[in-house]
């Protein structure tokens, strides 16, 4: 696993372009976090990739016009923990007629 930290200007679509560079390769993204970083923004991703893919991804990210910097690092313990310790899923389910949600909607 490798951690990628991408520093970018928070313009329309830039985060999506960063993620698309990953998704077009069919890679899983077990950890993604985007947050403010000074005046700009930083996305951190955890990816299971080989050396060649690291090079390709970094170059693809640099080609995005509002990406300013890309760094590859060892994953932090928090990233690894978040990637494996997902809480229980809560899929959308139909509400029964007696449920509070429906009652509220019908009120």
């Amino acid at each position, binding site marked *: 696993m490798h951690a990628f930290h991408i520093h970018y*200007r928070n313009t*329309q*679509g830039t985060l*999506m*372009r960063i993620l*698309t560079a990953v998704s*077009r390769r069919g890679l899983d993204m077990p950890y993604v976090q985007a947050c403010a970083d000074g005046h700009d923004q930083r996305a951190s991703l955890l990816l299971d990739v080989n050396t*060649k893919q690291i*090079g*390709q991804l970094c*170059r*693809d990210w*640099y*080609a995005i*016009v509002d*990406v*300013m*910097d890309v760094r590859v690092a060892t994953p932090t313990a928090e990233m690894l923990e978040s990637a494996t310790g997902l809480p229980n899923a809560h899929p959308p389910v139909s509400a029964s007629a007696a449920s509070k949600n429906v009652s509220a909607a019908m009120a």
Partner: protein
Amino acid sequence: MLRGAEIFLQCLRAEDVDLVFGYPGGAIMPLYDALEGSGIRHVLTRHEQGAVFAAEGHARATGKVGVAIATSGPGATNLVTGIADAKMDSVPLVCITGQVRSALIGTDAFQETDVFGLTLSLTKWSRLVKTIDEIPSAIAEAFYWAREGRPGPVVIDIPTDFLKAKMEFAGPVKFTPKPRMSDAATEAAFGDKLISLLQKAERPVALIGAGAKLSGAISQLRRLLDELNIPTFATVHGLGAVEPEAPYYLGMVGMHGTRAANMALHENDLLLVFGARLDDRVTGDPARFAPHSKIVHFEIDPAQLDRVRACELPIIGDLARTIPAVHKKVRGAKLPDWNAWRVVACGEDRAELDPRGLSQPTIRFLDELFGRLTQNSVVIADVGQHQMWAAQRYRSASPRGFITSGGLGAMGFALPAAVGVQLSKPDATVLCVSGGGGIQMNIQELATVRRLNLPIKMVIVDNKYLGMVRQWQQLFYQRNYAETDLSDNPDFVEIAKAYRINAVRVQEDVMREYPVTEDTADALERFLRSPEPELLVFDCAPEANVYPMVPAGAALSEMLFEEE
């Protein structure tokens, strides 16, 4: 106070736009309403895909930014293939789409699509305009990114209410990007290493791609190649960058490249790549691509490096800057004598095509046509067998003289692209070569050709099949011609006549005589010199194949030839 639409058009003019292609509709109507008197000529195509391909044709022929306009929803989605095409082939393109009014965005309103979202992975940059104030800066930034570095497509999606709203307009603005870390190589960094690699090389070659043309560094490149005098070949988009008569030039490389080019690319020990992506159609099996080679990659877009294999020396930057720097170093260096290698690579026993292939009637036909073209002519090829035959037979030193959808391989490209080319180069002979399948994907643009009275010379090579797919079915799927039979094609001559365009049909038998008869020669001359649009249907043998051919997954040295 000016309307948003008027501001929009003034900003386009400030970006040197005087010709746009499009198709009106609900959300973009305010822009059309302001067109008259704007100084911008709008060309109505008969489909949005026709508009975007025509804009691409204009951009590819001139190097200027092409502009296509469509309405929201289906108008915008019809642009998508052209946007993808421009991305693959590095074409500067600005697509302008109307959007439903801002209050309705996200409500699945009539003709609403998420244009911004659906084009994200196909564009260099895009913007959903969120206020009327943003119009000038959005246009300035869009054109900047369309042109900058490796050119490509951008999208401006503008809600219809901002086109109708009014504001005080101080004039167009200029976009200045914020600086970021530059990764461009410096002359000092790459020069010495390149010379060292050249001095150690025994079998160096040069591969020329589209980047050489896009950089505008053709004369510098030719001077460098003359100095190096090493076997040189081009991708389909690199055709015309090198003088075809240059003694070291081996023609097109890749899946349907010449034998000499493919063998040299396989055997070299130093590969200089000038602005090419090294995609699978050029490399064959990546694992067996240029097995002895060290790669020096001149490239403006770092994202294109190391895609197939790590290169020994990346030289990132505009070729207009890096080539002269290299040339300076080369001139001052003592380089090996590569004559023995050149004699092998360029020798007669590696003839440009399989000699048996030259008597193939379609090749003869294209040779007869191309041989009659003047220097400023432009050939636009669609996608399929005819495209590869045309690329193999194209002989011109005109860098923007051969235009095709190379990376995406979008059938239906040629006819609308020819519209854009002819409008950009009214005095040029524009020869549009399509197949019986591709022409029907945008055949409605015959109406545009007629309406504008564009003297485009249109050729349909009709073999009653989706020929390239059929060829693969023959060679790799035991002749199972599944759904490639087009024997019920309409009579293209009659269709052309319905559009009031002159049309004739030529049987391939006339090309079996060598030289062609005087009548045939005269007919071809008349066809090419006519001041009117003309269509010629060339009836081609159903099972004619394009050779040489490197099967998918094979190495470049494993070319197939006729009757193997």
